Structure formats: C-alpha cells, structure tokens
C-alpha cells in the first residue's frame, strides 16, 4: 500500500470511528451531504488532516470542494505533491 493510500485509510478509519453505523465509506460518497462530517465536527477533522499531511490547510469556501469525498481528499489534500497548497 502506498503512503497516500495509507493516509486515505487513516481518514476512512477516523470518519468511521465517528460514524460507525456507516460500516464503510465509498470513495465517492458526499461526506457533507450525507452528514459524515458537518460544520460542528469540521474543525477537528481539519486538524486531524493537518496532522496527517504535515501542513496547514485552508478551508475557505472554494477549497471546501476538496473535503467532499474520500476521492477528492485523496487527490487534493492527501497526495504528496511538491508545493501542494490547499
């Protein structure tokens, strides 16, 4: 398993620990629409992701798209890229 995949699994485990009833989370499930994360839990989620990727994240209205699904999180936040800024 690549480092990026391991991070994605960590994210999934973190979310499932908060919402165990889900059982599993599809890569394309809309996490916000399906209330897997909501506004009150968002800050803790961001800090978890920051710790995972080792950098601060921006959470303005534009960048919220990156938080919508596991796939977008993997592509836009977790992927190791030089000079990545989200």
């Amino acid at each position: 398993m690549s480092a990026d995949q391991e991070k994605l699994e960590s994210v999934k485990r973190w979310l499932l620990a908060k919402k165990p009833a889900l059982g599993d989370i599809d890569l394309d499930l809309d996490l916000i629409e399906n209330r897997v994360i909501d506004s009150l839990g968002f800050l803790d989620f961001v800090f978890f992701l920051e710790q995972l990727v080792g950098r601060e994240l921006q959470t303005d209205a534009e960048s919220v798209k990156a938080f919508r699904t596991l796939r977008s999180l993997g592509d836009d936040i977790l992927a190791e890229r030089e000079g990545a800024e989200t």
Partner: protein
Amino acid sequence: MAEIQTPPTRGISALLERITEMSVETYYNPYKMFEWPASLPDDQWWMTPELMTVANTRFAEELPTAQVMALSKWESIHFYSLNVHGIRELLLEVVKRVQAPGYDEESEFFHHFIGEENEHMWFFATFCLKYGRKIYPNKKLAFSIDDVTPDIESFLVFSRILIFEEIVDYFNLRMGRDETLHPIIRQVNSIHHQDESRHIACGREIVKKLFRHIVTTQTADQVQRAQDYLKRYLVASIHSLYSPSVYRDAGIADPYELRAALLHDPGRRAADERTLKRTLDFFQGNGILVGEVDIQ
C-alpha cells in the same frame, strides 16, 4: 461577580427599549477612544494565565515561562481572531432579520447591535493586526443547518449568538479586571464586556421567546434535534479555543499532540466547565437544554 445586569422589566419589548436607551446613553466613538501603543512588549502576559488553554495542566508548569508568555500572546491574538470571525457570522444573521417580518419588537435593538458589533470587530481586528501582524484564519466551515424549519433556524441562530457572547464575556470580564495586563489589553476587554452585557441580556430574552415559540409550533423530535445540535455547538465552541496554529507560533514542537493532550486533560475539563457555567445555567435553568453536556 459574573452576573449580567438585566434592567427590571415585565416583557421583552420593555427590556429591548431600555437596553436600546442604554446603548444611546453610553455610546462611545471607538475610533477615537483607544490610544493604541505602537507596539506591546513580548515579555509580558497578554492574557490572564488562568484563562490560557494550558492552565490547570502540567504543561503550564513544565514549559519555560518565556514560552508560556509567548503562548499567551498568540492565544490572545487567536481569541480576538475568533471574535472577528464570530462577529462576522452573527452580523450576517442579524442583518438578515432586521426590519424583517416577525422582528418588529427587536429591530430597533438590532440596529444598535449591528453598529456596536461592527465596532467590536474593528477594534479586535486592529489589535490583531497591530500587535500580531495577522488575524488567524477561520477554519470553521459554515455548512447550512439543513432539514430545519425557519423557526428552528432562528432559534438556533440566536442561541449560537448568545453562546458565543457568553463564552467571550467570560474572558472579557476577567481580562478587563486583570491589573497585571497592559492597559490597552484591559481596555479592549472591559469595553467589550460593557457592551456585551447589554447584548447578552437581550439575547437571553430573545432565545427564551424563540424557544417558547418552537415548543408550541414544532414537533418534539424537531425540538430535540435542535437541543442536541446546541449541545454539540457548546462543545465545538470550547474546542475551537485550542488551536494548533497558536501552539506552533509559540514554538511548541508538536502542536497537534498538545491539542489532543489538553482536550483529554482532567484539569482542562474543570476549566472548560467553569467557562461554560453561566451559559449552561441559563440554558438548563430555563429548560432550553436538558441533561448533561459532556465537554470532552
């Protein structure tokens, strides 16, 4: 000492009228009132040590005093930054309701509230930019509160405003009176406390009125969900005080580990319960929230 002075009144209209009169009588020009020093020394307490997020824990003892002092600086800039963002959010909601149907009684007060909150936002932002060279970004994301009726939404909006103001006032009241703090820090906090006392007095009556309304017009399940949301909002508000960005700026090696450790520290639970005591006394004392609120 932390009681909010509510003028004697029989109903919300009389209270709002009296509070509005007080706003006019005590009006000050914030743009002239503060004499901002060009800079503030780093080797001072910027925040009352007992109010810091490391207070009541081993970290306050183990970290070098200079580092705890640096933490007090960045924690104070973060606290005022939270105020800037919190005020922006509440202003947006109140502006939507001023002179709108259903708010005939409150609108005159809202005009003063909006003006005063705009000024508070200005002096908090000024403090951050002048002495911290930044406002910490808002990392909360405001998703809409879906699946709620307009009445529930209004109840939640004014409850959130009241909770925000109550928590901030806990800090303002103490820092405004702390003579070990620099005069400009004391002044910013005491002026804000003075205005917020009026806002909180009105906010409590508005929340009580809106709660009375929803229990008669909404289903028990809808009311229960609103109450559950508010309990989570209280916890999230407390958690937002613990910022890894602040810990990083104070030179803490692993800011996320520190945040996690503090959020699970029994000493912090006791401190956070003190911060929320007056807020919970109001919400639970008036039957708006029922049962325990687990802060951690």
